[in-house]
């Protein structure tokens, strides 16, 4: 598997469960080591986690004994930049529309708000790259949609590189500039395709969105059906 991701690009790793997309993301984050080959970011080989490439997980995993602001400032504290907390934490909380919640206990927030705090926590150390491991899959459709848009907008505004693992074709079309469709056994990139949509069209509902969605869905279906494992998935259901 060999691919390049460019600065400021939003890339979706799309694939069915078990195709290794999550493992790939962990490797990019330096949380897992590849059995062979290497991950290089800006000429540096990734061997450890670093505040320059921060991962966001399916669960927000906020620390329940801390306030929202303390949670958001943790990355700065861990990287010996505590002196930045007072200025930076309100900034990132405003960015995710939670400025008013700074002193609340993390447990008092809804699932979507908690995931926003997790986003603020990831953004606080000013990472170059954000790695998202199906971070919205536990949220209701409405909250998920608004976070997908917000995260893309924030990433674009900050010039952040975004890598998203997903099995949701709609999410890939809404968020990504480029989609790598992964295939299992052995894990490899079956397709590398650009999503050519304007920011407005990404909101959904337009013909252009529908066309891109249908195109990606057919690629996804084709890749999945080529799999060695028996395919039990009903793609008409998936395309709803």
């Amino acid at each position, binding site marked *: 598997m060999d691919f390049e991701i460019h600065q400021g690009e939003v890339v979706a790793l799309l694939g069915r469960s078990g195709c290794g997309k999550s493992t790939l993301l962990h490797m990019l984050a330096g949380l897992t080591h590849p059995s062979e080959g290497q991950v290089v970011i800006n000429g540096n080989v990734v061997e450890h986690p670093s505040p320059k490439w921060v991962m966001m997980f399916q669960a927000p*995993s906020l620390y329940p*004994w801390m306030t929202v602001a303390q949670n958001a400032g943790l*990355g700065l*504290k*861990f990287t010996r930049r505590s002196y930045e907390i007072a200025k930076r934490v309100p900034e990132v909380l405003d960015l995710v529309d939670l400025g008013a919640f700074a002193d609340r*206990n993390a447990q008092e927030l809804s699932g979507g708000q908690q995931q926003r705090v997790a986003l603020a926590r990831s953004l606080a150390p000013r990472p170059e790259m954000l790695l998202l491991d199906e971070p919205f899959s536990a949220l209701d459709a409405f909250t998920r949609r608004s976070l997908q848009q917000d995260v893309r907008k924030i990433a674009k505004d900050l010039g952040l590189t975004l890598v998203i693992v997903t099995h949701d074709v709609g999410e890939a079309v809404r968020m990504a500039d480029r989609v790598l469709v992964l295939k299992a056994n052995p894990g490899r990139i079956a397709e590398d395709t650009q999503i050519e949509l304007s920011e407005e069209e990404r909101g959904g509902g337009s013909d252009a969105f529908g066309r891109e969605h249908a195109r990606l869905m057919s690629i996804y279906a084709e890749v999945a059906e080529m799999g060695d494992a028996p395919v039990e998935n009903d793609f008409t259901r998936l395309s709803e």
Partner: protein
Amino acid sequence: MSDVTQLPATGFSLPKLGRFRGLANGILGIGILLVLWWLGGWIVQNSDDLFAFADFAPAPTLSRLWEMLMDGEVVEMSGPSLMRVGLGLFYAIVIGVPVGIMIGRMKRLNEVANVPFQFLRMISPLSWMPIAVMAFSTWDGAIIFLIGMAAVWPILFSTAGGVRRIDPAWLKVARNLGANPLHMLFSVILPAIAVDILSGIRLALGVAWVVLVPAEYLGVTSGLGYAINDARDTLEYDRLAATVVVIGVIGFALDALAGQLIRKFNWVRSDGH
């Protein structure tokens, strides 16, 4: 409809106590205990065989307790005991918490340590007494050792249990944000298990306070256990009973204090969801 049929008030109900209910019930419980004590005293006083022990009754005990409070005897005999329990507990925490964290984090170590620890735990701390007396040059040292031996297990096992219940995602997130092992310990592990450690200390405190009195029957000439022994030898049963009351009150207060600490450090919000 305004003229709702009025139902006649039926039966008898206690006045609503609201938030004072716990307090009221506590006072009720103490009252029952005092009545039983008084009844016991009355039986002893009216018994041909036992009337010599009549000073155990509430009236002589409480008036003696008042005297002992006024002349400072209570403070004088509690001070050394609290000191010993404090030191024993301190050593139990210093050993129990780190070892608990280690066996909670390392599965292999837990498997190796489990049998010997369970074995040692089941030995009554007082059975170490002869060894403690030989091993320590002072009586105080031996007593503190016995208290530590009793107190270390609840702290150790409670800590290890807390560590095992830590959400693995919390550790992964911290590592991902660049936490070093010290950050991990002080920002994630210790706050996550603070309540478990304190619950262990609360249990340990109970055990330590129970072990204290027989341990102070050893050679020392101070402390609550010594005071009890001394009162028995001088046949001052009112002083003996007053000392028992002091032991109970201090033990209760220490436990309540530990309970308050647990409430303070408990980060679980029941109304969170």
